[in-house]
């Protein structure tokens, strides 16, 4: 994009403008996403509890309800307790928001539509999302209130524990794909829905559910929302917050819900590839025409957002269905169930990719465009087994490097 802008702008400005466009687009996704998902949460919870939810603000479905809420929050007084550590208290919501905002930088929204094409995108997103807890802990500590401190302590214990099974689950699709590049992982699942990693083998199917449980816990959603348990801790870590700062915590929560759902969509549900290879039938995705490619990407974007929204809706469904767990139950779920199941799925997936390198269901995916990834798959599993070095390491390495050299059309 910067190269394109250089035709019209001086070079120094072109790079800055390109960066700003990316940043602002992601900010729009975060802000608009929060606006929509809070409305959706009200609607979903209403329907589950046999109510209507918001109906009046903005006309038919109450779709302006969140905006009205936002206006109300802006008019509220920005309170600060006398016993608070004021600097940390004021800055904590922004720390949370920054962490979930930064995760979007490496998240591809369609084939090549990504702000920064990172080679280690999966790792980066998992690392950055782990920082969101830092804002929560600062808030809990700096509020100078026992309720907040207890909420933050619970959150810290929970997130630190759930990072272990979450990490193991995320590694499984990476292992099958042989790369941590989210764009490449998405491209490998092109075609019919049975090319998705969810259906790659029974172990990935199990691992997905573990991933989703751990992701729900790591973004602090019910039934794992002990950090804000209303029945015990008033409101947990955000007890002392009001107005805009309070709402920024929720922006962070909702945007990280979207991030983990989008990550699930790419890792397990084929990302921007629909269940049917429609763009390939129409000849859009492999066409040399940039306009056709753009249309294919636009369809991919709709697919991708649909999957991410479905994931978030699923989290809401779970929230309004299951009761909150106790802290020892949360820990037992993580350490006694999620971690062993994830480890079992990981070992199973390693053995499966070793036995059936091309996948079992459809051994020759004949019409898949990216032939180079066909070569890559046996390489990926041989890289997992330590015998890669003993056979011809250079040939393996070459095909591995080839898989990385694809071009984003940003």
């Amino acid at each position, binding site marked *: 994009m910067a190269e394109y802008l250089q035709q019209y702008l001086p070079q120094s400005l072109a790079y800055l403008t390109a960066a700003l466009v990316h940043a602002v687009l992601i900010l729009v996704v975060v802000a608009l996403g929060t606006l929509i998902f809070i409305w959706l949460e009200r609607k979903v919870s209403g329907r589950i509890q046999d109510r209507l939810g918001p109906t009046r603000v903005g006309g038919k479905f109450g779709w302006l309800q969140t905006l009205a809420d936002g206006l109300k929050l802006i008019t509220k007084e920005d309170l600060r307790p006398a016993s608070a550590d004021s600097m940390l208290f004021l800055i904590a919501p922004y720390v949370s928001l920054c962490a979930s905002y930064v995760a979007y930088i490496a998240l591809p929204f369609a084939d090549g539509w990504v702000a920064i094409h990172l080679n280690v995108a999966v*790792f980066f997103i998992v690392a950055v999302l*782990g920082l969101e807890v830092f804002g929560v802990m600062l808030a809990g500590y700096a509020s100078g209130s026992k309720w907040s401190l207890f909420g933050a302590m619970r959150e810290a214990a929970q997130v630190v524990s759930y990072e272990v099974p979450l990490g193991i689950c995320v590694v499984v699709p990476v292992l099958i794909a042989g790369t941590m590049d989210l764009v490449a992982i998405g491209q490998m699942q092109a075609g019919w829905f049975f090319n998705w990693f969810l259906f790659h083998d029974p172990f990935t199917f199990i691992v997905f559910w573990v991933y989703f449980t751990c992701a729900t816990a790591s973004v602090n959603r019910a039934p794992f929302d002990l950090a804000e348990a209303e029945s015990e801790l008033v409101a947990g870590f955000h007890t002392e917050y009001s107005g805009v700062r309070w709402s920024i915590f929720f922006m962070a929560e909702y945007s990280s819900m979207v991030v983990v759902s989008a990550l699930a969509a790419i890792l397990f549900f084929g990302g921007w590839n629909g269940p049917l290879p429609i763009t390939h039938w129409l000849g859009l995705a492999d066409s040399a025409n940039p306009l056709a490619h753009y249309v294919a990407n636009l369809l991919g974007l709709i697919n991708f957002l649909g999957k991410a929204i479905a994931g978030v809706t699923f989290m809401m469904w779970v929230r309004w269905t299951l009761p909150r767990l106790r802290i020892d139950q949360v820990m037992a779920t993580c350490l006694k169930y999620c971690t062993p199941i994830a480890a079992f799925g990981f070992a199973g997936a390693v053995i499966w990719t070793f036995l059936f390198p091309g996948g079992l269901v459809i051994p020759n995916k004949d019409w898949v465009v990216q032939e180079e990834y066909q070569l890559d798959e046996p390489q990926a599993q041989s890289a997992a087994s330590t015998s890669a070095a003993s056979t011809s390491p250079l040939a393996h390495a070459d095909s591995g490097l080839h898989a990385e050299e694809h071009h984003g059309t940003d």
Partner: protein
Amino acid sequence: MEPINWHSVFFLLFALVGCGFSVAVLLTSNVVRMAFYLVLALAATSGLFFLAGADFVGAMQIMIYVGGTLVLLIFGVMLTARGPFISMRTPAGEWILGAIIGGSLLVVLLSAATSVRAWRPVAVAEGEARPTATRLGMALLGARVDKLEEPDPTQREGMSGYLLPFEIVSVHLLVVLVGSAYLARPKKRAVGSTAETV
């Protein structure tokens, strides 16, 4: 208009943020504020890694240092705190000791930085991912792929990767995990089943 080298601008920005907050860690006496400044300094360091094109190391910096260590540090501070806001006073002797250690480390690092014969820039087109993780993975499995690009053929010899160190570290970590689980186990079976916290 003079073209601005954004690379240098962001290098200066990250370096200033990193140094500034490192100094702030020294000057504040509130432990949690120290941890917060340390997070910012470490995050700025990871920004420098990303700027240098080492995205794996940068993500590692965030994961291990910024994430893991500091969450544990604050967790420890919160668990062991007696008062609401702990403050630490550093005695003069520790300042001197710290200055000696830090100063000697600075001398070592500066001499290392100035003794590099030639800096090699990484040329990568925009919108393309640098294949850093693949090479690292291959090197850990014993194949130094990066040596293929060495222009000097004599330098390409000795392509024994890091398989042995990798295995040693893995086994070491496993032993540490088993050991910590052993230390943290309940000594006696509790009478009530509700005391079964992990």
